[in-house]
């Protein structure tokens, strides 16, 4: 189990900068997520840690060992590839045994550990199968066993669940997290699936255009997104543009002037206070909006419902706010479903759920 430290990492492909001065520390035993839209550099960063790329600038440390120039085969990481990269000329057991053979373990030990690893991923007895005879889910488990059996310093996962169907994906989320925690593994997991990240991560980094935009726990990132991009990427949200009026009578809350009235909210960052007159963006999650009457909140959105979407567990409404934007409002399995109508309907949001972002 190692602590991974990344310092000022920069990488250019051709003329374009794919990673730009990335600084990051991943603690020992942490399940860390790299999250971002495609092309943001998250896989490139992972491949630097695995040793498949050498940075143009910057350093990578495993504990206090500088591994920046260490070739991939000497790093001792265990990687799960998006395509699984299982070797079609070797059977299941031979695939799993490969890393142990490279480490020149005695034959007895290899057999024992391969069986143990296959057992752990629930593939016991399938050691002599050919790779082509396995289903996608089974192949994914072989890839996991192959990476785990060497007892890696850290586990690297490159969108490991993207080729599975929805149900298997849910199952494997729990299982991968369980295995990582059971072994106390430092693990870095690349994905563009926010649900995967929110449900599994200890901490995560959101990347955009080769830069880290925010690093934090799922709760921190979801509740206090650093930028408009993060707020939008990590979940559905409504944006309202406005201008700070003043600090409100409630400590820590600010009044913001918008085209349809004054809203009260909190800053996304405890170290930053919006100054009066400063243009800001408010982020309000659909599930924070309610048609109930919140007596202690000044945040009212008068308007009418233009669209209703029934999603089973939730119902999503599109609310046309008077003199304001279209806003999403989400209700959890309500008794009564409101149809679209011209009738005036008022939604509200708690002061804590209105998050003020720098513009």
């Amino acid at each position: 189990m190692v602590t991974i430290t990344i310092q000022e990492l920069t990488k250019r492909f051709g003329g374009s900068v794919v990673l730009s001065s990335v600084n990051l520390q991943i603690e020992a035993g942490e399940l860390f997520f790299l999250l971002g839209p495609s092309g943001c550099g998250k896989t490139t960063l992972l491949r630097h840690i695995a040793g498949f790329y050498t940075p143009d600038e910057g350093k990578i440390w495993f504990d206090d060992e500088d591994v920046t120039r260490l070739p991939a085969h000497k790093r001792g990481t265990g990687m799960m590839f998006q395509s699984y990269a299982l070797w079609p000329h070797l059977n299941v057991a031979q695939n799993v045994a490969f890393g142990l053979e490279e480490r020149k373990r005695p034959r007895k030990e290899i057999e024992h550990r391969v069986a143990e690893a296959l057992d752990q991923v629930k593939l016991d007895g399938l050691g002599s199968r050919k790779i082509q005879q396995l289903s996608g889910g089974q192949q994914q488990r072989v890839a996991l066993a192959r990476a785990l059996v060497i007892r890696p310093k850290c586990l690297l996962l490159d969108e490991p669940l993207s080729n599975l169907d929805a149900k298997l994906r849910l199952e494997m989320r729990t299982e991968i997290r369980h295995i990582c925690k059971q072994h106390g593994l430092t693990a870095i997991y690349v994905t563009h699936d926010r649900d995967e990240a929110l449900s599994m991560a200890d901490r995560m980094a959101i990347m955009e255009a080769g830069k880290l935009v925010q690093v934090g726990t799922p709760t921190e990132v979801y509740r206090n997104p650093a930028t408009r991009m993060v707020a939008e990427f990590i979940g559905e949200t409504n944006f309202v543009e406005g201008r700070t009026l003043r600090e409100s009578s409630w400590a820590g809350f600010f009044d913001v002037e918008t085209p349809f009235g004054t809203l009260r909210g909190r800053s996304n960052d405890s170290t930053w206070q919006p100054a009066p007159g400063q243009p800001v963006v408010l982020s309000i999650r659909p599930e924070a909006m309610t048609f109930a009457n919140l007596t202690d909140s000044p945040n009212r959105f008068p308007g009418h419902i233009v669209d209703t979407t029934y999603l089973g567990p939730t119902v999503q409404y599109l609310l046309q706010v008077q003199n304001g934007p279209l806003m999403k409002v989400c209700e959890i399995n309500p008794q009564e479903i409101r149809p679209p109508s011209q009738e005036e309907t008022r939604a509200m949001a708690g002061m804590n759920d209105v998050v003020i972002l720098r513009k």
Partner: protein
Amino acid sequence: MSKSLSILIFLVMTAFFACFFAYPIWAALEAAFRGPDHKFTLEYISEVFLNELYREGLWNSLIIAVWTTLGSLAIALPLAVCYVRFAFPGRALLNSLVLMPMILPPFVGAIGIKAMLGQAGALNSLLINLGLMDAMHPTDWLGQQRMLGIIIMEVLHLYPIIYLNAAAALSNLDPALEEAAANLGCNAWSRFWRVTLPLIMPGVFAGGTIVFVWSFTEMGVPLLFDYDRVTAVQVFRSINDLSGNPFPYALVTVMLVFSTLFYLTSKLFFGNSSASGGGRATTGRETIKLPVWIGWACTAFFAGVTFLAVLPHLGVVLLSFSKDWYGTVIPHSLTLEHYHDALGHELTLSSIANSLKYSALAMLVALILGIGVAYVSVRTRIWGRQILDAMAMLPLAVPGIVMAFGYLAMTREGQPFHWLMLGEDPLLLLVIAYAVRRLPYVVRSAAAGFQQVSPTLEEAAQNLGARPEKALWRITLPLVAPNLVAGGLLAFSFAMLEVSDSMILAQQAAHFPITKAIYSLVLSLGSGPNLASALGVWAMIFLAVTILGAGVILGKKLGALFRG
């Protein structure tokens, strides 16, 4: 395309194969196994193994085939690895140049080799000039080591087939498969042996099989080296007393058995898809930048191999321009006379015309058949389509000399196909022989095209009201046209330089194609070899232009055509 039309195509193809592929082989086998009393006999076959001369021929053919295959592997594998993995100066250009030998007929190159390695040839002159050899006792390089000469000639001709296969297999390999090994602690060297090589083996062996069968049955090179102790040449020599002599048929049968056995073994071991390629690539492969001097070493390696391979043909070019080339490193004086004479010589002009006629017709036949087979096997789900596809690839495994004897056997007087002889004109037979033997290239090329063009494009046309045939004509055919052109060009150019069928089936000078004309010119006295060289240069230019054309049209997919 409607189902009935597919079935019609299937039946026509099957009938054609039955008549012109299976039946001739059967006819050759029959002649080998049927005694004078029309009863089954093993006498001729066993005589092949008992007769010392025949046994020696077979043994020598095997030795030549084994060493040619090993030699080609030794050259082609490192070349392919360098090309796919590393960036070095001149990489793109050298990748094309290194393929050149394939289009240079080794049969013609042998003339050049003889001019350079003969007792009064360029090499000896160079050594004498340098004072390394006694002018009174020049070494007879070819006299002593003719078999070595043949092997070198064939290696230098055939290595591109393995190179193309290996390079294609390497670049199709998902880089993640190697990265996974590196990630698990495997260094570059052991990664190559444990992961890369096993995974590209099917490709390498597919190429190796073609090289083996090709060199095992090669007739042109040993003929020009005057080396009679290989089976193919023994067969050719016995052609004159063919009527009633069963031994050529028996020899040909033994060759067929050896080739087929080898082909099947390699299919059995490496043909099953379990160890092929390993799926789509998920990450791009980056070529590794080498330190300057290693990069230049790669460049030198490529350039050196190309130069060696082209050397014999440089000899041919020099010979075709030379007034006299005897006892000097390069010819004393140059002349265009031979080109002029070549165009005036009765044999050359008629042979060029003949070859153009035979090859163009053969290309047409191969294209029609090839498109049919490829379409049925890629686009339809009718029963037996894989069998059809496999059948169309079989000519790769069957030596040309076997087919040639099969055609001879099936058109003997009294046989049902005797009319194909058209009296003494080999036109029909040669066209069929060329077409059948080059069919695999056309089929692979067309099939690759059909696989790339999604059937939904055609369905969209049908959805908008086009009849199925019209949709095929207006949508799919234009899209696969480059593949068809490339396949056709390959079929054409290989037909132009085909040796074994041409030597055996064309018996009268008036019907000689280019290759047989070159051979008979080499044998004639005086300026014969120079004339032959001039004719050979014409042929090489022809071939270079067509294959480069095919390469440009097909791009990287050229390699896909040479897989067994």
